[in-house]
């Protein structure tokens, strides 16, 4: 009985699943996915992704991620890639949630994006639409249909499938290269995705072989319409237009006004339009000539002139000139569709000068997004400080500017290199892109840094790698007036602290003994016969003096309290004065202005 009930419920659920379309199917597919019922989720998600059934919102994007995961689990990698490519063409901003989805889905999405970026579609010539079937068939094939046109067109799909206007072809799901051509018209190439049970309809409006090319340059950048059809942001390069008259509309960014003009394009004519109000000059003639070409919209010649200068002896050019020229070259390459080259120049731009931020009127939003992405992926750091600064240590901070590509924790170490190396100041801060660190030039003990040669090293630690920059500087202490210390008190200013008392008998005996020894020693050497005396008078005098001095000095020292106190007060006053002056001098020296000179930036 229970088995019968279960089979009935499952059968009903399956029937219900087949019947759902649009948003309900999307929701049901997500629920099946969460229950790990991948076989059940697959058809529901496929049906629910019909863009005609609902908005391309977060639910829709989540469904794409889940569908990809399901297909990868079921080992249908090619089909997963086709769905992802289709979804990315439909929603270029699609980003897989790396915290939720498995890495294999993230990698598949990255590969799909790379494929889509390398197979752009000329939306002015070709239009692709996808039609979901009204009822689910559960098939494993998709359909390609070439819409009819005013001229007899033919299309080659993939390697060996040929269609004429109005024909259809059933194909296995995947990405196909399509070439549509007609006699007397320029062929167009595009890549389309074929999805299971979905009809991919390709409609083209081929341009005649005599079509001209439109180039538009503008600064500040703007948006260009041709015959009321949006072309895109400036610069516009090589936009094909049929011979004849065309209405051009240019809308400057930031509400800067709208300009309408009309151009008549002759057969195969190149038309250059320029709304440049601000030009770049670097002072380097070769660079300035190339930049002038870009300013007038001659992008191809401008790139051809600029590229060899930067690739050749560009390293000898001043860094600001190189930076400006590299930014312009990236802008032009991006407009010409050389996305990889443009990204390489953006990398160069970040490495050349991490402090450089492209002017807001130069990079259009697409290029700015690409630049921001490149910058955040570049592990570079640069530090800079005023070349010559005078500041008061402890009170004033020394501003050090920091620029990083990839955001991260930046450590700044001010290291004394001469006269003896040791680390002095360590500052750590998180830097998103640009920041200013204010370093107090004092040690942990509050004392000002000692003069000498220093190296300021900025280091940003990123996952797996480290980038650093070094700034060498010299710190000098500027002279400051200090108060001279008081001279030592002269000896006569002190009073005798003791007086001699009466000597003891023993001291007298010692003194007399010393005197007798002196006399005896002299008498021992004396030649009595020669001098006529046993003891020379001088010897007796000297012996007496020795005895007297010995007795006189041997008396006990009797302190004179009044004089001791007087001398103590005298010394205390002097020491107090000396300490006060020393403290004042130390304070002045600690606050003496420091001069900081950046002597070399390697």
């Amino acid at each position, binding site marked *: 009985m229970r088995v019968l009930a279960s089979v009935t419920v499952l059968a009903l659920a399956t029937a219900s699943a087949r019947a759902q379309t649009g948003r309900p199917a999307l929701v049901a597919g997500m629920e099946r996915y969460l229950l790990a019922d991948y076989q059940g989720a697959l058809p529901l998600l496929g049906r629910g992704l019909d863009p005609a059934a609902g908005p391309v919102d977060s639910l829709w994007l989540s469904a794409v991620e889940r569908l990809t995961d399901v297909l990868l689990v079921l080992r249908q990698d090619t089909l997963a890639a086709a769905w992802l490519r289709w979804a990315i063409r439909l929603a270029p901003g699609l980003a897989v949630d790396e915290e939720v989805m498995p890495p294999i889905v993230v990698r598949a999405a990255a590969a799909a994006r790379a494929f889509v970026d390398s197979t752009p579609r000329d939306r002015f010539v070709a239009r692709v639409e996808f039609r979901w079937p009204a009822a689910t068939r559960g098939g494993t094939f998709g359909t390609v249909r070439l819409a009819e046109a005013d001229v007899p067109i033919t299309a080659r799909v993939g390697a060996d499938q040929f269609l004429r206007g109005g024909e259809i072809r059933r194909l296995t799901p995947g990405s196909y290269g399509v070439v549509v051509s007609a006699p007397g018209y320029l062929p167009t190439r595009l890549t389309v995705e074929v999805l299971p049970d979905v009809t991919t309809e390709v409609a083209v409006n081929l341009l005649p072989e005599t079509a001209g090319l439109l180039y538009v340059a503008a600064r500040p950048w703007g948006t260009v319409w041709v015959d009321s059809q949006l072309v895109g942001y400036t610069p516009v390069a090589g936009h094909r237009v049929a011979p004849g008259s065309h209405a051009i509309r240019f809308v400057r960014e930031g509400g800067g006004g709208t300009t309408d003009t009309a151009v008549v394009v002759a057969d195969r004519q190149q038309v250059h339009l320029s709304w440049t109000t601000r030009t770049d000059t670097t002072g380097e003639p070769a660079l300035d000539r190339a930049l002038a070409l870009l300013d007038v919209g001659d992008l191809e010649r401008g790139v051809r002139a600029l590229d060899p200068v930067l690739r050749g002896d560009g390293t000898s050019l001043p860094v600001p000139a190189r930076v400006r020229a590299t930014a312009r070259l990236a802008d032009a390459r991006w407009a010409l569709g050389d996305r990889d080259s443009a990204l390489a120049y953006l990398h160069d731009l970040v490495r050349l000068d991490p402090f450089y931020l492209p002017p807001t009127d130069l990079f259009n939003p697409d290029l700015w997004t690409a630049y921001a992405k490149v910058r955040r992926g570049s592990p570079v750091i640069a530090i800079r400080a005023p070349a010559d600064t005078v500041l008061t240590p402890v009170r004033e901070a020394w501003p050090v500017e920091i620029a990083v590509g990839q955001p991260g924790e930046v450590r700044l170490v001010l290291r004394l290199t001469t006269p003896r190396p040791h680390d002095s100041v360590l500052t750590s801060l998180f830097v998103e892109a640009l920041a200013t660190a204010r370093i107090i030039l004092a040690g942990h003990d509050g004392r000002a840094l000692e003069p000498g040669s220093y190296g300021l090293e900025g280091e940003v630690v990123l996952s797996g790698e480290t980038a650093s920059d070094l700034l060498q500087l010299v710190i000098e202490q500027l002279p400051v007036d200090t108060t001279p210390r008081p001279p030592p008190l002269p*000896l006569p200013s002190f009073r005798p602290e003791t007086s001699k008392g009466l000597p003891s008998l023993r001291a007298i005996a010692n003194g007399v003994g010393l005197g007798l020894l002196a006399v005896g020693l*002299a008498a021992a050497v*004396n030649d009595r*016969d020669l001098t006529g005396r046993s003891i020379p008078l001088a010897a007796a005098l000297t012996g007496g003096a*020795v005895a007297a001095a010995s007795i006189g000095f*041997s008396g006990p020292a009797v302190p004179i309290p009044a004089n001791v106190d007087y001398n103590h007060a005298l010394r205390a006053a002097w020491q107090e004065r000396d300490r006060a002056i020393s403290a004042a001098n130390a304070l002045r020296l600690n606050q003496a202005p420091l001069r900081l000179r950046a002597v070399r930036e390697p």
Partner: protein
Amino acid sequence: MTAFRLGTMLASLLLPASQLVAQEVVARAVLAAPRSSVRVGQLTERVAGLWGGVVVDFHMGPVGLTASGARGRLTPAAQQPVLERAAGEMTATGRYDVTPWLGMEAGYAARAFRSAAGRERWDIVGVGVNVAHRLGTDGSRAYARVSYLPLVKVSGEERPRFAVGTEVGIALVTNRSPITFAFSYRVERFRFEQGAARSDQFEALTLSMGARVLRFNGR
């Protein structure tokens, strides 16, 4: 050469240790009453007088150097048929204090007499010991010096066979001023070969006064 090398080595051992110790320079004016007694055969002549001069002492830790110079006139005692003479002396002495109360010293002295009869020069090299007894205040002391004079050369005469000298005296230093005083008595006795039949004694009672400058740890 060996002695020179030994001396150089000893000096090099002593100097580094004394670089940071206190240094003292004393300069004094000297007033002395010299007396010279000479007996040749049965004749004895005695001359005495006054001379003045300067003495400079330099001390650095245990090492001391002294240089002095003095000159004056010596006149005979009454009723002696001896010529009056001019006299002068220059000395240079080096000392090393083994302990605060015992020092070793070596010195050289050149003494000359000039009279109407001619000149006589004495070159004296001596070594000796110096014993000091402190007298209550810093630097004041009573001292006695005994010297053996192994090398004595007298111009125009043979070298003495034996020569000794002694000096006793006091040196006073006041605590509250840089003034120093010294009072001493010095005797040198020279005995010549028997054949020369000569014996000499030189004495000097000396009073000196001067000033000292002390330097501690480079200040």
